[in-house]
């Protein structure tokens, strides 16, 4: 399946029983990397990202049957990935509370635990700074900074006004700058 096929063609292939598998594989291959990085930026660890991404793609398979093209396929998949990621984070937080480990910087520690982590490099400090933000602000910053998503698309995805998203992004950028300068 040609990865450069447009979403309409991929969806048409999926809805045809004879080409269903090919259609799905085409959709997965087209978006898997974007979704992977969207999740990984939030969860840091590859193993956690892999688990969540697989769950997301299974949900995509199930949801594609009834997917209405009211929203873009890409936005719809991002929304599933975002919800699954936030659910995973909530579970992790609850687990930390149960294990009396709530004081630790869970995701910051995961960044530091990466085998390639080097605190002298700015790109690693940037990761630590992002992880110091609240989850929703991290999402806004990541979508804009890394995925270069337009505000109107982000607004559709996060169900938030463009103005609020802009304000959140600017606020996040300021906090990150302060974090890195004071590190």
């Amino acid at each position: 399946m040609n990865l450069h096929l447009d979403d309409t063609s991929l969806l048409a292939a999926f809805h045809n029983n004879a080409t269903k598998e090919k259609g799905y594989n085409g959709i997965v291959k087209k978006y898997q990397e974007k979704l992977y990085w969207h999740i990984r930026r939030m969860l840091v660890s590859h193993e956690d990202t892999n688990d969540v991404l697989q769950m997301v793609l299974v949900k995509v398979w199930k949801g594609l049957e009834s997917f209405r093209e009211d929203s873009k396929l890409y936005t719809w998949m991002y929304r599933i990935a975002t919800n699954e990621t936030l659910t995973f984070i909530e579970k992790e937080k609850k687990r930390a509370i149960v294990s009396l480990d709530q004081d630790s910087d869970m995701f910051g520690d995961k960044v530091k635990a990466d085998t390639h982590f080097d605190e002298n490099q700015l790109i690693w400090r940037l990761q630590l700074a992002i992880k110091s933000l609240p989850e929703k602000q991290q999402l806004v910053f990541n979508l804009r900074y890394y995925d270069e998503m337009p505000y109107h698309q982000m607004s559709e995805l996060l169900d938030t006004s463009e103005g609020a998203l802009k304000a959140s992004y600017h606020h996040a950028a300021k906090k990150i700058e302060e974090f890195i300068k004071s590190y």
Partner: protein
Amino acid sequence: MHQDKTIHEELEALSPFWTTIQSQMPYIVPANYFETLPSIVRAKVETEAVYEELELIAPLLNTIPKQTGYQIPVSQDKVMPVNTPVKMLAWPKFAVAAALIGIMVLANYFYTGKKESFDYAAYIGADPAQIIQTISDSTLLSYMDVHEKLIVTPDAAIEEYVLESDDALMQNSSDQELLEYIQSSN
């Protein structure tokens, strides 16, 4: 550097600090991860479909681990290579079995063959009446006891027995016969 200039300009407007940072991720993805992921996900979709189907039919079965419970003896793996000459020993077994079957067939042929030998030619054109005269009465009677139903000829056909009425019986019997009947009844 961002592909979208507006994002770059937006950050520059916030602070010159952002011009010093590269927007790339430092994390590493395992080799071939994206090549294998679609097939892994498809397998997972099938596994979930099987689970959900069973959840509707018999949810209890989903709570039971999918292990057969059967176990291979621990030493089996090590013993099996020692026993591999089984194939080498198989052909003498088949040879012995074939020889035994051959002996049994031959024995049956010679034994039952003699018993069943019958001189059919001697009876061709023979007179049945003469043959019957050579057979003793007791042999004929015991034969007829066993094969009674088969010996049915037009002359010997048994007529259906019909009970006579008492009046007809009285009229057809002589006085002497009636007297004998009364005496035997008493």
